């Protein structure tokens, strides 16, 4: 089924802004918030991993349940994980669709990548001296 | 800024009593001197009209709302773009050019000093940042006090000395030059969407009227011996019938200073309207000019309107909202806590529009009906009445009845019934224009003492040489030549250096910011006033220690120190 993904600022992501290579930042930005009913329908539990796929790409995230969202709407902190599934088309405005992205969600056992992994996947080179 | 000799200059220098003499002017170290050595660079002025550098005593070129005028108007920015060229940076903008754009264009017109008409103290740093990128003119900032809670509170308490002390602290903290009141009482009322109707209406938040604010500010200003007088934008700008309010305001102005006026009333065109509404809107320039003629303690500027697109911007928030409701175009508003407000809307003054045509006539009438040119200065309230690049046309209109008649034939056909302009024959002289564009400004601003507005030894070497041979043209007939001549200097000299030649800026330049610091006795120093501090920390959104503009923002600057009459033993 198709879900609507929003991204936005949250405290843990903000607090790790100066430490984006850290475990803390990775944990804060690779969580998919999702309604318990949606988890139920996916047949998984809060904390399980899912693969989220949009027209722009796909990424593995860990789930966390919340009732603050409507069913069918999912949320992720802004950051490199959100961007892995955000497209570059801006409708002629300069602003890409960071919000209300249609996505497919399926359970997975694949690992959540690190930030460096994500950067190397698109041609970057990690610096971990 | 080495030695320069400007030869064969045909000089008009009203402050020095020179009215058309062929002279050589020597400069050294940025000042005019008696002699220079034979090593001096020689510039031949070829008998061209040579005047002290132009001074705009009321313009909007720098600061929060000016920049917002740019920010919100990409269509205006694209209307005036120039590429990087020699020493000149890229510029954009027609009615609100970028800082470099303002500086280069003003320099091409021979202007070397600019007074920013309205600076909100809380945002003063911004104005100073832009001054730093207006390199070819010296800068002065009028500081807005119309809704200053500290000052208004002191006036409410009847304590003029405290009001003066608050003015002194604020003006030197923000490195400002003069006291500006914009729609006094009205901008504060606008905080809750209200306004005041005229000078005798009590404000909502303080138990005082605009009359009391204006009078008290004038008294406080004189207690502080500030170089300039209070600089007033009257209440009720732009409304039909407002001339009675303006006359009433002029009536309450005492004569307190024997070297200059006690009140500078700005853009008076916008305050000289008759009628009870837009349908019977008409000019009341005659009673206003008569009043000015009778009251030497008042100096005004024209606030001339010229046809075409421009952007209006003022601290008068409620007025701009009314204008927005009339035009339905964009509207920006920016209220500044405990101090003032501002509004911006774009306008297009059209000849087909009767009201616009009457406004155009009123500005000219004021300049022609005020007998003494020292009492009516030339300005468009740039960019409110028109962008300053229209000054040459304004000059030509004032010097030529023929030009006025030709223009008048193209405005709205009913204008003649509403304005006295067609019946006015006066044509201003070169000397009058020199007064209205530099000497009068220097005297009204009180800056002759720092070397502005004249060309005798000791003065700042700010000079404009226009490609006009006064004996060869009749301005009454050859008005096109007047426009052309004033549109582009042959040389603009700033602080003893040629900064602009035939329209092109030649150097990056560096301006000087002039600011005042009244010497206040310690009991009137607000830095240590517990009540003032407590009120500040409680209601402002920034800390008092972060409020004063730091020295880093001033670069080159000149502090005018004044002695004050605040000491307690004085009473």
């Amino acid at each position, binding site marked *: 089924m198709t879900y609507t993904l929003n991204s*936005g600022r949250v405290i843990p992501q903000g*607090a790790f*802004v*100066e430490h*984006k*290579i850290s475990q803390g930042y990775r944990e804060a930005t690779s969580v998919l918030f999702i309604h318990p009913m949606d988890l139920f329908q996916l047949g998984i539990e809060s904390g399980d991993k899912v693969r989220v796929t949009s027209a*722009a*790409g796909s990424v593995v995230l860990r789930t966390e349940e919340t009732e*603050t969202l409507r069913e069918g*709407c999912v*949320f992720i902190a*802004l950051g490199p994980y959100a*961007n892995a*599934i*955000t497209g*570059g088309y*801006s*409708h*002629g405005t*300069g*602003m*890409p*669709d960071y919000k*209300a992205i249609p996505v497919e969600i399926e359970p997975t056992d694949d690992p959540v990548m690190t*930030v*460096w992994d994500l*950067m*190397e996947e698109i041609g970057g*080179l990690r*610096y971990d001296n | 800024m080495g030695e320069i000799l400007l030869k064969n200059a045909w000089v008009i220098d009203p402050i020095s009593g020179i009215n058309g003499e062929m002279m050589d002017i020597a400069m050294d170290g940025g000042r005019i001197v008696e002699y220079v050595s034979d090593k001096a660079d020689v510039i031949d002025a070829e008998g061209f009209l040579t005047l002290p550098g132009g001074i705009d005593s009321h313009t909007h070129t720098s600061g929060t709302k000016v*920049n917002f005028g740019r*920010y919100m108007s*990409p269509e205006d920015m694209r209307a005036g773009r*120039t*590429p990087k060229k020699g020493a000149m940076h*890229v*510029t*954009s903008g027609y009615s609100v050019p*970028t*800082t470099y754009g303002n500086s280069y264009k003003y320099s091409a017109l021979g202007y070397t000093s600019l007074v920013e008409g309205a600076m909100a103290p*809380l*945002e003063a740093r*911004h104005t100073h940042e*832009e001054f730093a*990128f207006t390199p070819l003119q010296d800068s002065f900032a009028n500081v807005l006090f119309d809704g200053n809670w500290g000052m208004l509170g002191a006036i409410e308490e009847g304590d003029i000395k405290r009001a003066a002390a608050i003015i002194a602290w604020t003006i030197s903290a923000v490195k400002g030059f003069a006291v500006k009141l914009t729609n006094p009482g009205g901008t504060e009322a606008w*905080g809750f969407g209200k306004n005041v109707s005229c000078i005798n209406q009590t404000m909502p938040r303080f138990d005082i009227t605009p009359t009391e604010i204006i009078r008290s500010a004038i008294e406080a200003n004189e207690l502080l011996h500030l170089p300039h007088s209070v600089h007033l934008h009257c209440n009720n700008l732009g409304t039909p019938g407002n001339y009675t309010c303006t006359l009433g305001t002029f009536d309450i102005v005492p004569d307190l200073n024997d070297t200059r006026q006690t009140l500078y009333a700005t853009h008076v065109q916008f305050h000289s309207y008759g009628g009870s509404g837009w349908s019977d809107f008409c000019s009341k320039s005659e009673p206003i000019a008569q009043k000015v003629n009778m009251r030497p303690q008042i100096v005004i500027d024209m606030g001339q309107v010229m046809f075409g697109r421009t952007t209006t911007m003022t601290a008068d928030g409620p007025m701009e909202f009314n204008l*927005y409701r009339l035009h339905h*175009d*964009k*509207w920006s*508003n920016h209220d500044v*806590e*405990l101090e003032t407000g501002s509004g911006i809307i774009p306008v297009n003054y059209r000849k087909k529009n009767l009201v616009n045509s009457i406004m155009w006539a009123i500005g000219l009438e004021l300049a022609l009906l005020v007998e003494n040119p020292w009492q009516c200065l030339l300005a468009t309230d740039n960019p409110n009445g028109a962008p300053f690049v229209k000054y040459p046309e304004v000059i030509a209109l004032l010097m030529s009845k023929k030009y006025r008649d030709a223009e008048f034939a193209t405005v709205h056909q009913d204008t003649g019934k509403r304005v006295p302009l067609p019946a006015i024959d006066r044509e201003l002289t070169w000397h009058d224009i020199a007064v209205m564009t530099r000497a009068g400004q220097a005297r009204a601003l009180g800056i002759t003492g720092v070397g502005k507005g004249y060309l005798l030894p000791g003065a700042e070497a700010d000079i404009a040489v226009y490609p006009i041979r006064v004996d060869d043209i009749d301005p009454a007939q050859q008005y096109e030549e007047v426009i052309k001549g004033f549109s582009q200097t042959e040389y603009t000299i700033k602080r003893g250096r040629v900064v602009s030649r035939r329209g092109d800026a030649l150097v990056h330049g560096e301006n000087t910011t002039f600011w005042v610091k009244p010497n206040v006795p310690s009991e009137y120093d607000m830095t240590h006033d517990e009540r003032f501090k407590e009120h500040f920390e*409680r*209601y402002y*959104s*920034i*800390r008092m*220690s*972060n409020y004063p503009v730091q020295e880093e923002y001033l670069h080159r600057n000149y502090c005018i120190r004044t002695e004050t009459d605040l000491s307690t033993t004085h009473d």
Partner: protein
Amino acid sequence: MIIEDVPCPFCGCLCDDITLTIKNNRIVGVENCCVLGNAKYLSKQRLKHPIMRKEGKWVEVSFDEAIEETARILSGATRPLLYGWSGTYNEAQVTAVHLAEELGALIDSTTSVCHNPSILAIQEVGHPGCTLGQVKNRADLVIYWGCNPIEAHPRHLSRYTTYADGYFFENTVSDRKVVVVDVRESETAKIADEFIQVKPGGDYLILSALRAMVRGRGDVVPATVAGVKKEQLQRVVDLCQKARYGAVFFGLGVSMTRGKYKNIRNAIELVSELNRKTKFTISAMRGHYNVYGFNEVLTWMAGYPFAVDFSRGIAFYNPGETTVIDVLARKEPDACLVVASDPGAHFPKTCIEHMAAIPTIQIDPCVNPTTALCQVQIPVAITGIEVAGTAYRMDGVPIRMKKVVETEFPTDKQILDRICERVRELNGNG
């Protein structure tokens, strides 16, 4: 040593009441600050030397070599892009604009991916705004639309709105009403007197409905709009009209969703309409502490707040064409300089793919995801901690950032000045 009234270099609130304790040239204590600012003040992670990629490996290089390489790359480029700027001070941003002009480059800031739509809307209809103290003293109705200040601007409510002391209030909390509009029940929504949960992308439709209702034309509005019942919309309209002073704050929840700037335009027009009845203002919740400063600098220098293309020698502006996301997605730039921002963490994948494919240089104190995309990174002093300079709060109030500790790192301005000077020499304009 205790230093008081320090402005915080984190978010657009630019709180200027932070107290820092300094020991041995290190910040050891932070007071009055939120968790976000606190983390920045106490951060120890940073890049210690300039680094450059050589033969597929990172090597340490001198500042001279890094600057030379940067100038060489930029001056040789046909379509250079200069991006970032929101995390540095105005004085450095000024040099950036001069550099862009010298290079014939595109220059854009993080505004492009945050409040770009707000600016486009303001350019269409203007902006009835105010300084934050005006809200603090007067606003009896605060509307947070598509923003979540409790998490993104943690002290916004206590310094400027709901919990702030205000001149016209006896009881600051009970005398003010709060309305929150969001797609999810955020932390801020939990404290609202009225929470409007809108369907994603439905903001525009709700704003239109509110405008019609304020005008007394609720008759045309359907019973439900974007998931919100007409009755609730009427309650909000009543709250607005009864308010003495209403303040709307909006965030990326409005600017990033469907319709983009049209949403903000509609919100501004609602506020303009409400000003016919009472007093209303509207303000953007700007993110970086000096994102607004760059808008101001570029505007006074080039005439436009962001996204300026100097390639033709004049300043050209057209978001959607000259904006960073679009030029990267179209793969136009052939060199890129990133300063004081982190596109690696914040741009869509397709955009950073192109950054990784062209010579990209970063000037930033920290190692971050963008580091991986670069050929060169030059570490610098941290603004507001190690270097003083001007920043603009979200409401346009300029504040001087302080230097509180000494550093051996050069400043952004020093590095940019040297690059600019070297580019002039290489261009034959030295």
